[in-house]
């Protein structure tokens, strides 16, 4: 092969890569334009920050889920785990379950936000670790383990709280949900920081590359000397950690931890990851894609609500657009490779 053809090929492939990764992003841009044309106040900073705050909860979990799905795994328990961690955080923050009902923000009866945060992420990571252990040691498929986790964690949450919410945190904790740094909501900043961190870990560390390898072909990864089981356990710990972090932020934002929090989040979170281009068969995907996927869902929901579209129609439109977005991405990829 002559060097010129090679060069043109290589640059061709790079442009291709670039465009490919822009598939969902282009769709996102399109949506934003459409919504802005429909109602210009859509791109008011207030609304943009609203959207950012809204996607931060599921977005955080989606970051962790990206690790899991990259290994060809899945975690269906995240919604329940979110509720569980949130309840744990609330118990710690309030110092017990007894005062489930007081909204008095004065009461500093508990152990403070830091202990609550710590409790949430530690419990989340532990729960994830236990699930990872069941997956690798008992050889039960992730789908089954985390489906079991889904019902177990919900049951535990309801048991702790006896079905009710635990509400009323002090201002320092609430800041994590409702505060602003400059004009930017704190949850959005937490999400952005976590996304950057995850991007670096996945793209630029040996651990991150090992995650991709395990997902690409677990057996080959094992033969290449990677500790596949440890890596698998670690990704469930990571997603559990993020479920805990998201739970803390959500509780802070709502000033309440509810037993019914996070129902159905697993599907939203997994869609964000998958729309972002991560393959459910593992080995392919990126954090950037997940962020775009989460943003796409958030913009879609907010934009439809913004235009007061009836909730029935919303369902239909959201479903169709999700399919279209991914179809567009596939089409783009097949074109670009040509």
């Amino acid at each position, binding site marked *: 092969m002559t060097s010129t053809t090679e060069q043109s*090929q290589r640059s061709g492939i790079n442009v291709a890569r670039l465009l490919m990764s822009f598939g969902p992003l282009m769709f996102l841009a399109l949506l934003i334009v459409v919504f802005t044309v429909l109602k210009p106040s859509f791109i008011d900073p207030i609304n943009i920050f609203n959207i950012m705050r809204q996607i931060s909860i599921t977005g955080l979990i989606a970051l962790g889920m990206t690790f899991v799905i990259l290994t060809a795994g899945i975690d269906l328990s995240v919604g329940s785990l979110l509720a569980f961690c949130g309840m744990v955080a609330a118990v710690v923050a309030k110092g017990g379950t007894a005062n489930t009902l007081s909204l008095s923000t004065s009461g500093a009866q508990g152990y403070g936000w830091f202990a609550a945060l710590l409790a949430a992420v530690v419990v989340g990571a532990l729960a994830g670790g236990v699930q990872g252990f069941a997956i690798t040691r008992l050889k039960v498929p992730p789908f089954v383990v985390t489906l079991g986790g889904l019902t177990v964690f919900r049951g535990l949450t309801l048991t702790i709280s006896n079905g009710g919410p635990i509400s009323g945190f002090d201002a320092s904790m609430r800041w994590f949900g409702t505060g602003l740094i400059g004009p930017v909501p704190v949850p959005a900043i937490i999400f952005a920081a976590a996304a950057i961190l995850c991007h670096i870990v996945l793209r630029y*560390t*040996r651990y*991150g590359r090992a995650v*991709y390898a395990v997902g690409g072909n677990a057996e080959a*990864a*094992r*033969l290449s000397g990677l500790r596949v089981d440890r890596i698998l356990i670690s990704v469930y710990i990571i997603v559990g950690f993020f479920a805990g972090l998201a739970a803390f932020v959500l509780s802070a934002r709502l000033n309440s931890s509810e037993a019914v929090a996070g129902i159905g989040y697993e599907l939203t979170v997994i869609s964000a990851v998958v729309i972002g281009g991560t393959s459910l068969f593992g*080995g*392919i995907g990126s954090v950037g894609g997940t962020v775009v996927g989460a943003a796409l869902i958030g913009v879609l929901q907010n934009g439809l609500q913004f235009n007061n579209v009836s909730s029935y129609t919303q369902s239909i439109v959201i479903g169709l657009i999700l399919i279209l977005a991914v179809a567009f991405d596939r089409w783009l990829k097949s074109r670009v490779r040509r």
Partner: protein
Amino acid sequence: MPTAEAIAPSLPLLAVEGVTKRFAGVTALSDVSLEVRPGEILGLLGENGAGKSTLLKILSGVMPPSSGRIVFDGVEFNPHNPQDAKRLGIVTIYQELSLIPTLTVAENIFIGRAPLGRFGLVSWRKMEVDSRAIIARVGLDLDPETPVSALSVAEQQLVEIARALSLKSRLIIMDEPTSALTETEVQKLMSIMGRLRKDGVAIMFVTHRLEEASAICDRMTVLRDGRLAGHLDRDGGPIKLPKIIEKMVGRAASELYARPTLRDVAGDVRLSVRGLRTVRDPQAPHAIVLEGIDLDLKAGEILGVAGLVGSGRTELARAIFGADRIAAGTITLDGKTIAPETPADAIALGIGLVPEDRKHQAIFAALGILTNFSVAALGRYSNALGFMAERRERQALASYRKTLSIRMASPEQPIEGLSGGNQQKVILARWLARDPKVLIVDEPTRGVDVGAKAEVHQILVQLAGRGIAIMMISSELPEVLAVSDRIVTMRRGRITGEMPGIEATEEKLMELMALDQTQEATQ
């Protein structure tokens, strides 16, 4: 790392003592002992299913032995996983390729040990530069950023070899590293192996191409049915093939690669290709683009297709078979123009293809042998209502099991439990069961042992005798020479020459296969 001189040459680096391995019902290895010394190349030979890969997997920590002892460097060695072996400097090239398809070539080479740059973060640039150099050692020239899924089997094999060679090692285990390679790459590998030997690295080498083994191995250990059949030593000259074969099969061997006798193949033209051209396929961005292919294939004829890796032989097969899109050109079958758009169309017209990549394109790993066997001929083994005629199906499998001497436990056994060669025979049986008009076989004996290889050749000749037109792609020139009535050569997507099998020699073919390379060089 200790040099060769540091260790007394008499001291074995690795000693296997009475190793036995049992699977459910199967004893794959029984009481096998052998030794490897530093700076020596030990050939491990045996028929398909003899237990070679099993032994090597035990040595590299993939699976534990059922009983027996392994001593490495004087210390008892009980690897629990591949990492334990790797740590001691035991590097393995597995028979079933173990690259990660979703990752790039560079990443596969540096799996688990990516070069780090600033802040301890992975340096992608360094990885690319280094990996380019590493694959260049085995004569591979491709963009290290290419995903492995886009590589041909041969390229994957080269990448895997390159990776193994780039690791610090004291013992390199190579399980059929050359099964998809052509002469040129094999030569390159041989010279690298020679250099490693000089550096005191020990090598265990498995191949079914006995010439190779004879040329490079210092000693050989032969397995038969999981037992030790004996050791062979180089006494001044290379170990002779008949001696090896005798040890392998337990009886004297007849001449293996018989030259074809001049058969009467005056059949009509069955398949005719004119002006065939393909375009770049988005799914296989790396694939060779065919240009101006003209080809005739007569009934009852075996047409050998020779070429270097990446010459487009596989593309030609796939294009005719309807697996890849055709941009221009016509194909006629028995005088009628055909345009198969899918393999299903081609099969319905009477064309069959045994693909080169057994693992990804041919076998259904977890499914039973019976299903694997009949999948292309479901119509043949079912009644008008669509119900399977299982008794007929089983009878057919049983008869192929006998004629192809397939070693298997039961028709329900998942095919992944078979040795590579036996898997290949099942795939051949799959196509024989369809009784095609045209059968294209792409590397039909990849990983098949000498005995079975001869059987496969015989089967091909018999099929041709029944009037089937056969196109055989093979990277093994002796094989091409042995069975082809006519041979065409390919180079970079074009046909560069044609000659009757009787007249062909390795030298003549090599010249045609490398034709425009020499032209380029003179330009």
